[in-house]
């Protein structure tokens, strides 16, 4: 009895595995995303949004798994130029986002969302390798055990984002 039912269960598991829609196993991250969230906070402070449709609010959209969302959540308590930050988690539409952070795991599934913000003055931040080269504005990368970032100046210009020289000094600049 037990043996049969076990086989059956395992078989079902295999079927599920094969036919399941791809989605990511939630990342088990803590410090990494917290540090990235702190970077993003600094980016918001050193970027001037010339095109912001509502300059009275700072809306940061975060697309990713729970661990990333949890790391960004404390930013709600922070402010940028005395404006309280609002966090929108996994938005369906990017309409309100001033900045958008996408985790590497969530990027593939968020293609449409990412494309939808192009040309709307949104600061697009990612972490997957080549994110900036593919047209993202800022890419957080890892070097050794530390976090670095690259900025795509062409994207910044076309999105009418002016980036402070302080950031540019520390960044690896991608200009293509």
């Amino acid at each position, binding site marked *: 009895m*037990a*043996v049969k*039912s*076990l*086989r059956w*269960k*395992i078989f079902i*598991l*295999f079927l*599920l*595995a094969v036919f*399941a*829609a*791809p*989605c*990511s*196993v*939630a*990342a*088990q*991250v*803590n*410090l*990494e995303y*917290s*540090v990235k*969230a*702190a*970077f993003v*906070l*600094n980016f918001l402070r*050193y970027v001037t949004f010339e095109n912001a449709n509502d300059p009275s609010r700072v809306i940061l959209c975060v697309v990713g798994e*729970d*661990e990333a969302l*949890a*790391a960004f*959540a*404390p*930013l709600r*308590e*922070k402010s940028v130029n005395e404006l309280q930050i609002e966090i929108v*988690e*996994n938005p369906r539409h990017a309409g309100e986002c001033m900045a958008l952070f996408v985790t*590497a*795991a969530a990027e593939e599934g968020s293609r449409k969302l990412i494309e939808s913000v192009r040309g709307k003055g949104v600061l697009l931040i990612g972490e997957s390798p080549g994110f900036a080269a593919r047209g993202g504005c800022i890419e957080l990368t*890892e070097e050794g*055990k*530390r*976090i*670095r970032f690259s900025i795509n100046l062409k994207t910044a210009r076309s999105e009418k984002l002016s980036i402070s020289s*302080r*950031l540019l000094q*520390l960044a690896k600049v991608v200009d293509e």
Partner: protein
Amino acid sequence: MTTLYFRLCGPAALRLRALFFAAFLILLPARTAAETPEDTAALFDLSIEQLMSIEVYSVSKKDEPLAKASAAVFVLTAEDLRRSGALSVPEALRLVPGLHVAQLDNSTWSVSSRGFNGVFSNKLLVLVDGRSVYNPIFSGVYWNALDISLENIERIEVIRGPGGTLWGANAVNGVIDIITKHTAKTAGSYLAFGGGSEERAFAEARQGNVWEGGGFRAGIRAYHRDAAKLPPEIGIGDAYDETEGGSANFRLDSELSAGETLFFAGDLKRFKEDSLVRFEDSTAAAAFLPARRFGDHQEASLQGKYHRRMANGDELSLQAFYAWYERDDFTVRQEAQTYDLELQHSLQPVSGHTLSWGAGFRRVEDHFQDAAIVQSPDPRKSYDLFSGFVQDEVALRGNQLRLILGTKLEHHTFTGFEPQPNVRLIWNPDEGSSLWAAYSRAIRSPARYNDSLNIRAGSFEALPGRRLTTILLGDEQIDSEKLNAYEVGWRQRLSGELQLDLATFLFDYSDLESIRFESPRIEPPLNGSAPFLPARWVNGASAVSYGGELTLTWSPVSYWRLQGGYSALELEMEFQEGAGGIQDEGEQTVEQQLVLRSLLNLSESVEIDALLRFVDSISQPRVDDYAELDLRVGWRPYRQLELAVSGRNLLAESHREFGEPFFGPLGTLRQRAVYAVAKLRF
């Protein structure tokens, strides 16, 4: 597959084949996280330059953290805990390859690493945020009293093997460190409730708030568990071990300035721990009387920690805790308080060296009142532990090779000075591989029961036709148990998705606790005047054990993760002439175990998780091998709501996991259980 010599027979062997049919081989998400992100809130006040200097333990790079550890380490993350469906810490530890987790009755667990299991498994140190929950009276852990919400746990780090140099006495066969979440991660409200068969009802609530530079949370929880059944050879029907309990806890984090943090945490717990106990009395007509034990356990703890990370990378921490508990039933009535203070400092005096040193003081004060099983000629006692350690980590050949040298020196009231040195060497020839080797010495301090408690341990036919009660007598002459340990390990990333972790060990124990019988006596060390057979604790045994654990982690696709571990162990125990085991502790060892785990995301919101485990037999007291399966289906229709149904022990109606201890509750059968849970976050 056939190279795994499972000595399983009958149905278990069939199940084993079924298991291999599944061929989900295995894996282990071994990641160590040596750096605690205790001050994530502080990160938001750092400049970009400061952020760029922070070392991040990336979990996305599966091999990187592992490559740093020169010990057999396994980490359970918050996500692992959530998806295990487990309701308690010991239950969650079943996921850890190489740990033997056995539940004796509804409220009694035994957990061991690399052999020597027992209800008072005395060679495994357990800490909660650095606070020891190892009980110095019975030298074990009251697992049931470790009533922590799994939702509050950031991760559980499990080290198999000795950790005496850093952790001190009793970190002989392993260390389990439970790290709770920073309050920055528990902002908002959380409510969970559920119930089912066996786990009749459970509920918890938590509220958290964060502010600039700090956070607070408070939570309460309660549970009620149904009574289990007795094994047929002992009796029929109910084992009267239903249990219920409740607890409240809080944590406060505060950031004093950049890099300077303070946290306080505390809890209050109370639970009922009923069971049947074997109460033998040579004066009674029947040698064996199962007696109902109505247990009441209460405890409270308060801890605080100051941590400072200086701009040059030096770290300083100061920690203090107070803990109190009282346990009361007719077999034992005890109360104890612990005061503890610890200081740690790490610095880089010269390039290539990381020097850590620390000092600590602990005082335990206990009080016993006479009870039927445990009595003390010395009802109040206090004992002190002074400790200091120093360790240097040297980077050689440009970080490819690292050497760790250190020692702990402790002074305990019962035994005097005890050094616990270690030497570790780790070689990372490339990114994905590491080889490590270690020698270490660890000790297990005598417990209060070894020193000065009298325990009525059952009766023997000492004279023809005459049964005499054996009474275990504490002896102040008893010394520490010692271990010299040799370990070698290898970790390799075989491909992007497959990782291997192998750890092997040779342990050489001496001065192990054992007992020596003396001539029957009449003068009463316990109430009453019946003749009894005294047995005294002596350091009369030695043992050699060797074995290893192999773990593999495999993520064939992004939405499916498999993990598994196989462990094998041989243990030979030898007694000096005249000495023996009250129960042959060395025999209470599970020689082989296999754990297979599957975590599958069926869609964005549906998860299906399975845990299969095979546990070898225990020879004395006899427990058969068994195979069991736990399944969980979780569904998150909204971000705020999680619903899950878990099935536990699904393969058989019931099984036994552990034999009876020499005193304490009767073992009961673990039964199939199904329960549902709803969790709300808002």
